[in-house]
């Protein structure tokens, strides 16, 4: 599904943040990427999704056999790459439902599927809303406008559930969630697990991993993956902290 080789990337001021990442995620797998603040977690999510402001200086990223880095952000999205934002963006005046339908239809067209009409769309929406315990009123508001922190994160997972990506990257989706919201978000992620789909969860804490059990856990530090292991690695980290991995660079 996703193969990252020796990935180096820097930000606008020239500082190199990613210093040679190697990572392979097979279809059907859930990987957790953990690490201290400043280790490069969000940069990795940004580079994979095509966020402006990063320059890849070395290495490659292959997604479903294609050169992911050659695609614009919208092309990646239409090819099935989804990023759940750490800080979802507000778009005033744009109805959440309208936004989602525009997004869904553009992704569907890329998959060779027909647009959903209003009735079909509403039916699909209702099923997913129930799963995430989101009220319908949320759909009629502007995109993320006036949403609480928890509502924003749930809206991200709701969009993900609707768009059914092949590769989902969750950037600190668990941060700022209370325990109930965390459980709902986890339910949404688990519902999406399947043999054709890969999930990369970027997180600082272990607690999301209690609800969404990963196949692999990686520790990112100083722009490199310094340790990989099974789900037990997350528990180990919870006890020892990131101190042991310090600034491995």
């Amino acid at each position, binding site marked *: 599904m996703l193969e990252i080789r020796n990935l180096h990337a820097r930000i606008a001021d020239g500082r190199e943040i990613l210093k040679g990442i190697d990572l392979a995620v097979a279809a059907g797998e859930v990987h957790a990427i953990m690490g201290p603040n400043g280790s490069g977690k969000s940069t990795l999510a940004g580079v994979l999704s095509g966020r402006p402001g990063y320059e890849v200086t070395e290495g490659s990223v292959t997604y479903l056999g294609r050169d992911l880095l050659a695609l614009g*952000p*919208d092309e990646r999205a239409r090819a099935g790459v989804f990023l759940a934002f750490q800080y979802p963006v507000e*778009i005033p005046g744009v109805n959440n439902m309208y*936004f989602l339908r525009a997004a869904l239809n553009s992704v569907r067209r*890329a998959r060779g599927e027909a647009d959903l009409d209003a009735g079909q769309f509403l039916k699909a929406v209702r099923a997913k809303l129930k799963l995430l315990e989101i009220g319908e009123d949320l759909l009629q508001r502007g995109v993320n406008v006036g949403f609480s922190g928890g509502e924003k994160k749930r809206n991200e997972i709701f969009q993900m559930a609707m768009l059914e990506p092949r590769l989902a990257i969750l950037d600190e989706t668990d941060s700022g969630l209370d325990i109930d919201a965390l459980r709902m978000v986890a339910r949404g992620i688990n519902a999406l697990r399947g043999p054709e789909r890969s999930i990369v969860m970027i997180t600082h804490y272990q607690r999301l991993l209690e609800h969404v059990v990963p196949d692999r856990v990686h520790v990112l530090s100083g722009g490199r993956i310094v340790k990989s292991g099974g789900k037990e690695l997350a528990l180990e980290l919870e006890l020892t902290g990131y101190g042991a991995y310090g600034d491995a660079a």
Partner: protein
Amino acid sequence: MSRPATVKNAETLRDVAGEGYKYGFVTEIESESAPPGLNEDIVAFISAKKEEPRWLLDWRLDAFRHWRQMAEPHWAKLRVAPIDYQAATYYSAPKRQNAPKSLDEVDPELLKTYEKLGIPLNERAALAGVAVDAVFDSVSVATTFKDKLAELGIIFCSFGEAVREHGDLVRQYLGSVVPPGDNFFAALNSAVFSDGSFAYVPPGVRCPMELSTYFRINAAKTGQFERTLIIADKGSYVSYLEGCTAPQRDENQLHAAVVELVALEGAEIKYSTVQNWYPGDAEGKGGIYNFVTKRGACRGANSKISWTQVETGSAITWKYPSCILEGDNSVGEFYSVAITNNLQQADTGTKMIHLGRNTRSTIVSKGISAGRGQNTYRGLVRIQPKAENARNYTQCDSLLIGHKCGAHTLPYIEVRNPSARVEHEATTSKISDDQMFYCRQRGLTQEDALSLIVNGFCKEVLKELPMEFAVEAQKLLAVSLEGSVG
């Protein structure tokens, strides 16, 4: 190996931007024109061509004499190339033997032009429920639905016909809202106006369809000076749509129209404009000078006038659709979206003059600047001494795209009655990279993302437009901003 994480977009955008102005075709028709220049003889020539009564010729000449004493206004935040008023032609009419009695007699070239513009002039009009008074250069070509409207006593015809058939009404109201000497361009229009639209809705009648006029400037070097007069008698209602396009030419063309609205007691007029005159090319060559005076008088108690405008075209826009709130409890509204891209300039806004008691006005202005466009909101709210409990709410929002454009907000507030309540809110924002990226990460192209964000910004204004116009306006917003990000 070096590779930026995002490439591509610039090229895709350029492809789309190449689409350009869609209405830039020119219709080859022999036209009958006055010689260039402006003097009393030309004014008389126009009046004679139109077989006008003596009172109207005198009215025109009076306006012309006013105009000669006046100077162009230069207070607006606009850079206008000098206009040679003696070089322009003030009358141009498609040449024809006799006036057409039905659509079959109308020059097929003209009908084709309207077809390209998508005006439902034929049977499709019935389905669309739109009655169109099409103004081609100076003469109104065909008016549909007249009979159906006539059953209700509604008059909807060209201005020229109104002068002939309903002279008393015209004489009573013409210039009663915008006097001939009101301003430089209104005086010019009053002297040389060649045609336009006229509507009268009798007491208690609710006009069952949207009345619509499409203006189009065709002949080269012709100014278009149309005149619109709409009268809503007691307790009536009418919604009027105005759409504008013009061919693509290298020289600037002047468009100086006057629109007068009169709402009597309990009447309501809703006036919607989608203005898409040729804006000039990306280097600022050519384009329409859109210098227009629009004003409505809420003469009777409980009357209402609502202006909605979407201004995407013209090289320069200078217009301030206004309301004079004379009647007690009368209501004035102004909803505006103005876009300036490339080298376009707009200085636009409104005047709300509160004279009666409990008068209320609402102003919602959305200015969007892209490229090197300059966009100014200029608005006056005046509460006169007798306007007890007058209320105004003004909201001016500016959106900047890129870093070479400008947005300016110039509100003038004059309150002469202590019971007034006037609120003014203004914001300026930029489309953020985060918003664009968020939309694109969900699969929307850069163009679709921009269109979505801009339409969201304009939502409060667009929702005031009649349905079919709203769809057209949304598309226009997207087309107007093509090539502005990347």
